[in-house]
């Protein structure tokens, strides 16, 4: 049992509950998502929980025609490509996430900077954070 306040276990547990919880450095104010125990900016260990709004914009993306096994098992592939992206959140951090609801027939038409909001998708028996336009 991992009872750390900020860990991949804590992060994915909050995602299962459809909440986005990161960590904020009490000393320097830097905000981290996924949450970290040690501030990457000032190395302080004085961290508190911070809730994210789930709002952001698309910073980079790819429409993936040869997906990893986990996505193949979720039904993605050449004829149904998945979109993986990097999302810049309004709170500052960027995060990697699946992007849903985009027109994958015209990948060149997807716009960097598209406003996105968080959504939660189920793959297998787990819930993952994703974003939709």
């Amino acid at each position, binding site marked *: 049992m991992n009872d750390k306040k900020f860990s991949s276990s804590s992060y994915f547990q909050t995602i299962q509950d459809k909440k986005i919880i990161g960590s904020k450095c009490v000393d320097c104010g830097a905000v981290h998502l996924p949450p970290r125990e040690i501030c990457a900016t000032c190395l302080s260990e004085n961290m508190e929980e911070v809730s994210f709004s789930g709002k952001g914009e698309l910073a980079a993306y*790819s*429409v*993936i025609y040869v*997906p*990893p096994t986990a996505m193949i098992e979720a039904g993605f592939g050449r004829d149904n*490509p998945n979109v*993986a992206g*990097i999302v810049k959140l309004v709170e500052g951090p960027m995060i990697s996430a699946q992007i849903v609801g985009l027109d994958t027939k015209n990948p*060149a038409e997807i716009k*960097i900077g598209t406003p996105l909001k968080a959504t939660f998708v189920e793959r297998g028996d787990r819930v993952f954070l994703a974003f939709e336009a």
Partner: protein
Amino acid sequence: MRKSRKLNRGVAVVGVGMSNFGAFPGMSSRDLFVDAFKEMRTSVDKGFDPKEIEAFYLGNFSGDLFEGQAHQAPMLADWVGLSPIPAARLEGACASASVAFREGLLGIASGMYDMVMVGGVEKMTDLHISKVTDALATAADITYEVSAGFTFPGFYASMASAYMHQYGATPETFMRVGIKNHENGALNKKAQFGARIPDLMEAKKTKALQKGKPIPTWKDEIEFLSDDRANPLIAWPMRLFDCSPVSDGGVALLLVSEEIAHQFSDDPIYVIGSGSASAGALHSRPSLTSIPSAKLAAQNAYEMANVTAKDIDLAEVHDCFTIAEIIATEDLGFFDAGKGGIAAEEGLTSRQGPQPINTSGGLKSKGHPVGASGAGQIVEIWKQLRGQAGERQLDKSPRLGLTHNVGGTGQTCNVHIFERR
């Protein structure tokens, strides 16, 4: 904190050997490395006694996943007759061999050893391609990056999407890099895909004719490379010919201290700069169109060598994807940010251009056996500096060469600078 670093004594590369790069059913890492070792032995101008090798550093990303075989350094040392010398495997994903090279360099520069062997090996083609994709993905953050559905082509494709948005590049910009690297690789007998794109187009037309199928009517390379059937999308905007292949290959290098270099070689190649840096996940970085570890490793290597980007005659850079070469040429300072794509389009990085990049064919055409690739880059620089690169030899008698080897999307980057005196 100390900013500038130097080697305690000079180090030279006096021998290099490389197996063919490609897909070789039935050939194990062991067989590939033995080929490299045998060639390295014969490459030393004045000969040497392998029993004088004091230590072995091997780059190998994941024999564990690719072959079900970890711990290959002592095994390979034994197989070439070098037991019981110290033998260690170093892992830095696709930069494993340059991590090993740097350790070998430090081993001699520190005074601990006078002669070491550095190797790199990877045997990737035994696994089904989907398993290869998964194995390579372990070089990224499985928990926070790959869970988003990313693959390695996907990561670099995302960087390409940001680059296109920021600088106005198009998929054609990336294609120009592939066309150039295939031109170079066609002159490299050890290359996995050593064929020019126009020749591949002709071959496909001939095949269509033989099979009685409609003959394709591509008007040029760009039209061919934009054809979804001839060049399928892997991760938009990266297509098949934007991606380095899955490869098998091995490399062996012989390093000695500068003091004794002329005992072994008429023309030693000196290592005058070494820079190494790390970084977090792609999404954690301030820029998605530059690799911070590459910029820092380059800066450190230039400082140690007391040279600048302008002094470098040729470079082998980590073109695992075409976009990666463009970003590399900017991070290394050959071109300003956003200008690397234009430089590629204008042919500035061709063998005839002012800043030749990847004369070997690069990972794109030569092949990318991930744990060996960084050492393979050094083989090319060594040959070019010594005037031994055959048909692809640069005319201008290069004196300074650079290697740029990236692990993951830049979680690791090593830059080395080599000098012919």
